[in-house]
């Protein structure tokens, strides 16, 4: 754990989960993660967020190290259990503590953790809670990534406690992020958690940029002591700008699709387009999600299994749909032996707006001359589309 003073009377409680390799039973965590709480000493003592229930004992150990005798308020920025999970045990150990939440946060904590109503103090956007010299200002920031989320800004020390926003799954013994170390984990985190909420983040960033921030203290991963670095990275990711990249999630069972993909990669590369193929039987889906953040085009490549696409292709296509990337062009390539309904089944997965679907290429058997011609044409179409849209 990292229990360390970052500002006058403000302490980190970073609980590393070095070995955790999966989040939500879905997202790979190659670098583990941390659950971050912050303790503020003043006339009133405040704990900002708690920890995953598996780390409750560690949280209590940290509070003991800090010699905490009473807690007046626990700010719950976000009701998800990796930050709120220790609350039931915490309020029985510190029965005087009140939980400071948004209206929705109260509803969620009541239904998810069965916390009684009288424990809550509900705050609204812009409200300030004075705890002595320190003043906590609450900023409602719904949909990053739940509808109840708030950010907490400590005015005296200019610290923004941003909860999941600007977070990263990175178990480290460092308190502060190092720019070249944090970019990839932060982008991965954005891709997996925040990307569907680009338009909301845009509005929140406008609010945040009006605030004088010295430190951004998230609930996962290290603190950003250079806020413009992470804010600028987010601005780039949420912008409508796409890069001259083609992402190809693919599966090949007997080599036909692999041959198509291999040929197609070379044709795109010759045109100066960056290609990112992902063999879904081997790939880390987090890497695939990162590649969705700014690619202009996605080409799904699948064999036919029992008339439809390979189930792993369905999986990747569903992720693509729910992560709502800013991708501009999409197509499907693939192969079948005697019949296929792949395109129809996959088209039901395609987001219906803001994406242009290019004519799919589904061939019979192993690719032949005519099929390579079709792939040449698709590569050329993608090149022209990127050029027309000033992506090249």
């Amino acid at each position, binding site marked *: 754990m990292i229990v360390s003073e970052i500002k006058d009377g403000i302490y980190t409680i970073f609980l590393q989960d070095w070995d955790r390799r999966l989040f939500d039973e879905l997202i790979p965590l190659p670098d583990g993660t941390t659950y971050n709480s912050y303790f503020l000493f003043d006339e009133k003592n405040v704990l900002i967020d708690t920890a995953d229930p598996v780390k409750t004992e560690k949280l209590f150990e940290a509070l003991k190290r800090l010699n905490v005798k009473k807690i007046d308020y626990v700010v719950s920025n976000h009701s998800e259990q990796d930050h709120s999970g220790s609350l039931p045990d915490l309020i029985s150990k510190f029965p005087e503590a009140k939980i400071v939440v948004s209206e929705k946060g109260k509803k969620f904590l009541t239904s998810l953790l069965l916390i009684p109503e009288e424990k809550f103090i509900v705050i609204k956007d812009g409200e300030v809670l004075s705890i002595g010299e320190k003043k906590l200002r609450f900023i409602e920031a719904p*949909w990053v990534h739940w509808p109840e989320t708030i950010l907490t800004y400590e005015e005296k020390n200019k610290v923004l406690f941003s909860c999941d926003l600007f977070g990263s799954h990175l178990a480290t013994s460092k308190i502060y992020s190092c720019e070249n170390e944090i970019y990839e984990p932060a982008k991965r985190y954005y891709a997996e958690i925040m990307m569907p909420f680009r*338009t*909301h983040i845009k509005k929140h960033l406008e609010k945040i940029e009006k605030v004088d921030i010295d430190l951004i203290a998230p609930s996962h991963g290290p603190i950003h002591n250079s806020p413009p670095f992470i804010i600028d990275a987010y601005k780039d990711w949420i912008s409508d700008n796409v890069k001259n990249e083609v992402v190809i999630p693919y599966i090949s069972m007997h080599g036909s699709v692999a041959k198509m993909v291999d040929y197609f990669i070379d044709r795109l590369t010759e045109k100066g387009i960056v290609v990112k193929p992902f063999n879904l039987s081997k790939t880390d889906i987090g890497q695939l999600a990162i590649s969705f953040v700014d690619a202009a085009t996605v080409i799904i490549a699948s064999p036919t299994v029992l008339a439809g696409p390979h189930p792993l292709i369905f999986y990747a296509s569903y992720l693509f749909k729910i992560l709502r990337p800013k991708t501009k062009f999409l197509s499907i390539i693939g192969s079948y032996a005697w019949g296929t309904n792949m395109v129809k089944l996959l088209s039901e997965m395609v987001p219906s707006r803001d994406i242009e679907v290019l004519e799919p290429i589904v061939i019979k058997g192993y690719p032949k001359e005519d099929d390579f011609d079709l792939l040449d044409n698709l590569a050329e179409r993608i090149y022209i589309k990127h050029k027309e849209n000033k992506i090249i």
Partner: protein
Amino acid sequence: MFKREIVMEKYVCEVCGYVYVPEKGDPENGIEAGTPFEKLPDDWVCPVCGVGKEQFKKKED
């Protein structure tokens, strides 16, 4: 003599499939029952997945 019934249209979220039913409104988010879709505030979002009004289309049935 002829009673004209005004039927408020339902709208469906194209991202997650949530259906906005004007007769029910969205009281959890401050939208009273009986509010037609067109009268929802601009910053109203799908209560299930968070997308804006522009991602909704009229429900056909």
